[in-house]
């Protein structure tokens, strides 16, 4: 079943046409990476999906229902989004209050709140910090709290809008591992908007957006090995594929691999075969 179906979506920001007819559909439980250069319209797309912006024309169908002004609050209950800046999305005065914020809005019965807060703080390993203020947390920790906050509302779709781009390598790793474990455990459909080509190698599908249009779409193996398309849209090849090209120059032919682990395996087998 398709949980999200977008058809010929247009969006204009003042004079500037940001989205120029995007069509996209996502199957339930899949993990999709959305790649694209700065200013390509990826974040705008995310905001349109959760109804924070209003489309100019086209259609957005969530769970088979057309997104309108009337059902935006109801549909939004079923989608979670984690934004880029860890500081600007921390609403509560402590971790506990921040996780509670969404529950308060959704009128979760008061007696259910504490168990839910505890459960999701535990899920993102923030239990020791429940009463800590945001100024005393690292960027990665704040993003974990943001994730706990949206998970507590049991969303069916989770969007990560460059959620790791302001974090240090340690924070990035933490959050990426968390996202993957959430995807594996719960059957949540994930949309991850990112610049990181290596991040996109993980997951079921990759969509490249540039200049307000879908420029390429397919499995990571299909899209990420297409050097021409990536280059045309100001993206880089994953390192393992860059390495494959270098090897070709010296007469070593390997099949395309997305990770260095796979490439190592491939080279090892090639050598052993001789």
């Amino acid at each position, binding site marked *: 079943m398709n949980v999200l179906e977008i058809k010929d979506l247009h969006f204009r920001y003042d004079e500037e046409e940001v989205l120029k007819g995007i069509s996209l559909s996502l199957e339930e439980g899949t993990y999709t990476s959305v790649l*694209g*250069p*700065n*200013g390509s319209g990826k974040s705008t797309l995310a905001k349109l999906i959760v109804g924070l912006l209003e489309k100019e024309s086209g259609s957005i169908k969530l769970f088979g229902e057309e997104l309108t002004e009337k059902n935006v609050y109801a549909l939004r209950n079923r989608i979670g989004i984690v934004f*880029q800046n860890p500081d600007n999305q921390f609403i509560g005065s402590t971790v506990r209050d921040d996780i509670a914020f969404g529950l308060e809005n959704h009128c979760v019965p008061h007696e259910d709140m504490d168990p839910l807060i505890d459960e999701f703080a535990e899920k993102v390993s923030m239990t020791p910090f429940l009463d800590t203020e945001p100024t005393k947390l*690292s*960027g990665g920790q704040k993003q974990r709290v943001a994730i706990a906050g949206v998970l507590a509302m049991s969303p069916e779709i989770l969007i990560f809008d*460059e959620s790791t*781009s*302001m974090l*240090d*390598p*340690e*924070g990035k*790793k933490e959050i990426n591992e968390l996202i993957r474990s959430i995807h594996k455990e719960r059957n949540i459909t994930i949309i991850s908007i990112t*610049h990181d*080509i*290596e991040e996109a190698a993980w997951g079921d599908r990759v969509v490249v957006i540039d200049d307000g249009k879908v420029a390429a779409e397919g499995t990571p193996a299909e899209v990420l090995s297409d050097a021409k398309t990536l280059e045309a849209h*100001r*993206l*880089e090849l994953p*390192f*393992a594929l*860059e*390495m494959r*090209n*270098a*090897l070709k*120059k*010296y*007469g*070593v032919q390997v099949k395309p691999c997305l990770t*260095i*682990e796979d*490439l*190592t395996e491939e*080279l*090892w087998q*090639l*050598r052993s075969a*001789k």
Partner: protein
Amino acid sequence: MAITFRKVNFIYSEGTPFSYHALKDIDLNITLGKVTAIIGATGSGKSTMVQHLNALLVPTEGEVEVGDHTIKAKAKNKNLKDLRKHVGLVFQFPEYQLFEETILKDVAFGPKNFGCTEEEANQRAKDALKVVGIPDDYYDRSPLDLSGGQKRRVAIAGILAMRPEVLVLDEPTAGLDPAGTKSMMQLFLDYNRKAGNTVILVTHNMDQVLKYCDEVVAVKDGRIAAHTDVKSFFRDPSIMEGTNMNPPFIIRFEELLKEKGFALKDTYGDPDSLAKAISKEMKR
């Protein structure tokens, strides 16, 4: 000119319950005319350290020597403005420092503060904008109407227009896309290679360190954990332990291959030399 830290200690809010010992007995000599990377985990003290380079922070103990200037603890340090003219510091997310009506005025703001005439400041601003790739029909636009990446470049031009001999950058490429990152790093490299200036780069990105830097200073818990040239830095994986850094892909790949019994010789941390070494190994 030289850049030297002597027994530098820095304590935030000394004497209060919030006091925090950020730098501990730092002794450091940064080589001029090179690109030096300063790496370390968040909170390791690297940002505190670079803010000593233009006396935004003054040591609690010890002294920092930059060219003719010596910034000493507990002394009245004069002529800070002259020091700041020679050491340009670009903060993280510098786009937030734009404020003037037009792009040209904003870039000329620094040179004017440091005593350039209007005409000279404008000329420098134009030169700097050219370097960062902002076309001249943008000069009279408001910097606030630009896209994120363009704002960043204008902000950096604002520092370049001061023509500092030492350019310090705190994670200049955070949040940029790969193409934007690449062109920006090339710009800093040119500032060093073509004009012979010193570039100091605070970064989390080890691939950048490998590709663009000559030397590495690793900071850990407020102390210098290592100071060495880039090649030897990546050859000794133990240095990076505990810094929360991931080695660059190419180094990790080399390690993986070595574990599988590949003997790789004459690799220089670039795909080409590594591919050559692998091909030799395959033919063996």
